């Protein structure tokens, strides 16, 4: 698994999951880069696309459950921007699944590992499909 994944994580529950995974000694691939932000509501479609433009295969947005948001934003903004990014990706002819939004409860280290792994696998599948169809055409 060598997919480059950028994780934008909020500094609250999102980060706590990553922390928990580390404390429990649960490994995840070295090709995953984590960037910590105060809150996912500060992210816009531009930032997501920029990560992809710069070579990321996938972008994972990791945050709290909406009702847990410490900043009282309830994740509305991130949903709008997440949608925008997905739509722009389809306009560009790219798979909108290259962006994934995950909301985890605090300290769910296993959940984080699970999410990263399934995201990576999904990206892998997609890439294989694209490559094979690409060969045919």
């Amino acid at each position, binding site marked *: 698994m060598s997919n480059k994944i950028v994780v934008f994580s909020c500094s609250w529950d999102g980060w706590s999951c990553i922390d928990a995974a580390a404390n429990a000694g649960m490994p995840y691939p070295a090709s995953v880069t984590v960037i910590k932000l105060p809150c996912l509501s500060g992210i*816009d*479609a*531009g*930032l997501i*696309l*920029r990560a*992809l*433009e710069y070579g990321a295969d996938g972008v994972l947005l990791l945050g709290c459950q909406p009702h847990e948001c410490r900043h009282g934003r309830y994740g509305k903004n991130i949903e*709008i921007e997440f949608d*925008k990014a997905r*739509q*722009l990706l*389809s*306009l*560009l*002819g*790219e798979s909108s699944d290259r962006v994934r939004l995950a909301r985890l409860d605090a300290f769910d280290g296993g959940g984080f590992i699970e999410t990263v792994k399934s995201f990576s696998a999904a990206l892998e599948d997609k890439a294989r499909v694209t490559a094979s169809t690409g060969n045919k055409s």
Partner: protein
Amino acid sequence: MNMQEIIRQTRAHFCLDCGKCTAVCPVNRFDPGFSPRLIVQKALSNEGGAYDDARIWSCVGCNMCTVRCNYNVSYVEMIRHLRMLSRENGTELVYSHGGVTESVMHMMGKDDIKQDRSGWLPADIQVKSPGDTAFFVGCAPYFDTIFKDLNVKLTDGTIGAMRLLNMAGIPFDLLDNERCCGHDLLLAGDSNGFVALGRNNVEELGARGIRKIITSCPECYYTLKVDYPRYVDGWNVEVIHITEVPEIFKLKGAAMKKIRAAFHDSCKLGRHFKMYDGTRNLLTSLAGAELCEMENNRENSLCCGASPWMFCGSVNKQIQDERLRQADATGADYMVTSCPKCQIHLTCAGMSGDGKYAGIKIVDLYHLAAQSLAQKDG
């Protein structure tokens, strides 16, 4: 290009230092520190280091200065070259909108993408494929997504333009994989990004045998007509603006209830090309509107306040506010634009601030015209 060549090409050495440019500059109105004259003078000085002056990023490219200049010094071109130099020297840009437009343009510049370029297209639009004439859509579909929160529907304008062409019996093809023209990257000094888009457009047009392009977007028109021949290898396509298609004006409109419309000139179509009448004719004869000129109109028209998705700050907002005030003062029902970006910027300005001008309805010219014709038919 080095400073000497830039000076020669932009005729900057003719600068008489008279200050007319600064006196009419819309940015200077709200930011007294910004002076086109001083930028040119700095470029002309021995140091020639005008490109590291942060002020070069404030210019909105409205061309008012050049129109007034005794020697037609091309300030906008000067600014663009300075921005290129500045970026070559490592300047990192601050984009508005989180840089989403820049990323989209960069991703469009990749060779192996396969865009969804027709998902938004209504079924009634007739496309003649293959053909030697293409309608250049521009970035309206992307803008619809990016500026969803503003509730603008920029594709309405392009669809309107295509309907007009359909009604006038002008056949056109659409490109499956049309790239952004690159206007904003070029004006922001990103020549690599621009050339990547240009190269892909040339390939696409060549593969489809397109000899002629019709477009309704003023910036696409300018870029394809003026910048592509200069900077893109292998460009050999005739470019016309939709208001240069005579058949359009033979259509009969004006069935709608008479509306009063304040027309906002785009800088590119207006001051750059001096095309003031075609759009107005469309508005009055096809859309059947009564034209209400704003205080600043035609050559003196005020810019929508922002150009290549950079530096949207208080100065830009004040320019936009002033423009909305002028539209409001006419008492018109609509403020009509012919440029998707003017529509975005003015709509945004109307929604922000104290909401004084939130009531101004800003619509696209071609949308309005096509609607009026459709109602007559129906």
